[in-house]
């Protein structure tokens, strides 16, 4: 229960910051000022936006399927929020440390699709229905390259447990039960003869110990943009063609929940990218001889310093990815629906399949 409340508070505060950051980043990239009135530099803008949404009338269309309509936002948010349960935040803080975390995450995130369809169908509106169909088609398609990219990381790590994958990517590797006698080699290849187990830092991040995962990281990042309906894959929300996609009929608090789900999804996919590919809560600084930067910036596991350092590295890496997501939104034009499918099925999926093959071979080299 405590983990639930903590995760929810953390998530809400990140989303508030993210919504503010998005407006400021958008403004700065377009040579504008962004919000300036509410609070210093407009920093209270997103809080006030939430308050405004709470005051709005809760409209349920007369001809809508009322149960589906009302349930959909809750289901969408619950599906995304449930994904956070298996995310390790620090070396010893994980809401639910289950051995099949990756599998569970992929499964529970897919429920999102059902929620989208419920929203689109329940609205009894052609635009909402079309938006929901496009959204679902997009998410279902992009789950394949994303799943393959995650699969290659799982193959390299030989684990479905997020916490074990995290431990593998740092100097604390041998602390994890079951990994006591495992060793990390540079690029994962023992033949090179450079043992990085105690060096840690960036040298043990997944994209470094198996460089093939750099490609799957890029594939996963692109696919995750599509899964969280972010630009340039924000086809479901295409204002110019579809009014507002599946949430055209939603107002007030229900809209706020859909909005929250979208931003939570952004945070979640960035967290997963960081954990699987960018070293999770591990520091990027390696131990260099007597200068044991990695140990200094990891803290002591089980104590407050470990929690603070772990949380700091995890969140800062996540924020870098989130910033990249924002920058991409304000840089690239929206893809047409056929271009979207072309990218997914003819570019990303074949490359991802190739990467899975290469990851298998790499894993053989790592043994």
């Amino acid at each position, binding site marked *: 229960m405590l983990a639930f409340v903590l995760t929810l508070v953390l998530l809400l505060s990140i989303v508030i910051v993210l919504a503010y950051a998005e407006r400021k980043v958008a403004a700065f*990239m377009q*040579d504008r000022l962004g919000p*300036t009135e509410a609070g210093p530099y407009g920093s209270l803008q997103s809080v006030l936006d939430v308050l405004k949404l709470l005051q709005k009338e809760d409209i349920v269309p007369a001809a809508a399927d009322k149960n589906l309509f009302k349930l959909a936002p809750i289901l969408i948010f619950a599906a995304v929020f449930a994904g956070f349960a298996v995310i390790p935040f620090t070396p010893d803080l994980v809401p639910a440390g289950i051995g099949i975390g990756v599998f569970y995450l992929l499964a529970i995130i897919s429920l999102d699709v059902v929620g989208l369809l419920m929203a689109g169908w329940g609205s009894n509106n052609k635009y909402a229905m079309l938006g929901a169909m496009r959204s679902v088609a997009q998410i279902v398609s992009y789950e394949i390259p994303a799943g393959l990219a995650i699969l290659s990381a799982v193959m390299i790590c030989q684990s479905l447990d997020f916490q074990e994958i995290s431990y593998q990517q740092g100097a604390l590797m041998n602390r994890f039960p079951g990994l006591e006698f495992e060793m990390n080699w540079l690029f994962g290849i023992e033949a090179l003869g450079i043992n990085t187990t105690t060096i840690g830092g960036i040298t043990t991040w997944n994209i470094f110990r198996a460089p093939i995962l750099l490609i799957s990281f890029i594939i996963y990042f692109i696919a995750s943009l599509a899964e969280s309906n972010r630009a340039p894959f924000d086809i479901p929300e295409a204002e110019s063609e579809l009014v507002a996609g599946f949430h055209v009929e939603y107002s007030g608090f229900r809209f706020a929940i859909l909005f929250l789900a979208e931003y939570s999804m952004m945070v979640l996919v960035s967290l997963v990218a960081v954990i699987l590919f960018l070293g999770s809560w591990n520091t990027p600084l390696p131990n260099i001889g007597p200068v044991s930067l990695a140990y200094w910036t990891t803290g002591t596991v089980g104590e407050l310093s470990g929690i603070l350092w772990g949380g700091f590295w995890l969140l800062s890496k996540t924020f870098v990815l989130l910033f990249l997501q924002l*920058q991409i939104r*304000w840089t690239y034009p929206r893809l047409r629906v056929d271009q979207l499918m072309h990218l997914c099925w003819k570019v990303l999926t074949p490359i991802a399949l190739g990467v899975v093959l290469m990851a298998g071979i790499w894993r053989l080299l790592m043994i």
Partner: protein
Amino acid sequence: MKNRSGFWFAVTSLISGLRLTWKHFWNAKNRRTPEYVTDKNYFNQPDGLVTLTYPYEAIPVPDNGRYRLHNEIDDCIVCDLCAKICPVNCITIESVKATEEIGLTSDGTKKRLYAPVFDIDMAKCCYCGLCTTVCPTDCLTMTPVYDFAEVDIKNMIYHFTDLSPEQAEEKKELLAKQQEEMAAAKAAALAARKQA
């Protein structure tokens, strides 16, 4: 330009796009400042943010710009020229002849008329500036004020008269009395001439 395509072209153009937005984001620490037209940098687009937080900072307007009208009623001789030339009829003037000279304007013209009504409807004004050119005493001018929106459109009618309704009534009565007296004097003179 040749229509280029292909995987590497896509990748390089995506990266150059990111670099472009990053450059703008990085330059956001610079901002343009409100400079006057005579400033050398007025037409230079500096790097960084170009918007101003308007009510708090604004670019100064040129001296000879055409913005809100103002009538210096003390200098007005109520000649009605502005109301006649106004292409949109936004100036309404009523005049009452004074019984005597009521003073001088700042350029020495004698004032012989009161203006119980001198209204300018700013909602109708088209900012052509004709009224200011015909004004013989230069009492109608265009000020640099351009932000004068109102919630109620009735407030866009500006009253410039310096007479209260009571005073205007009094002046009218005085004029009527004087005219009566003059008429009586004239009638008396006429009668005297007939008798003679």
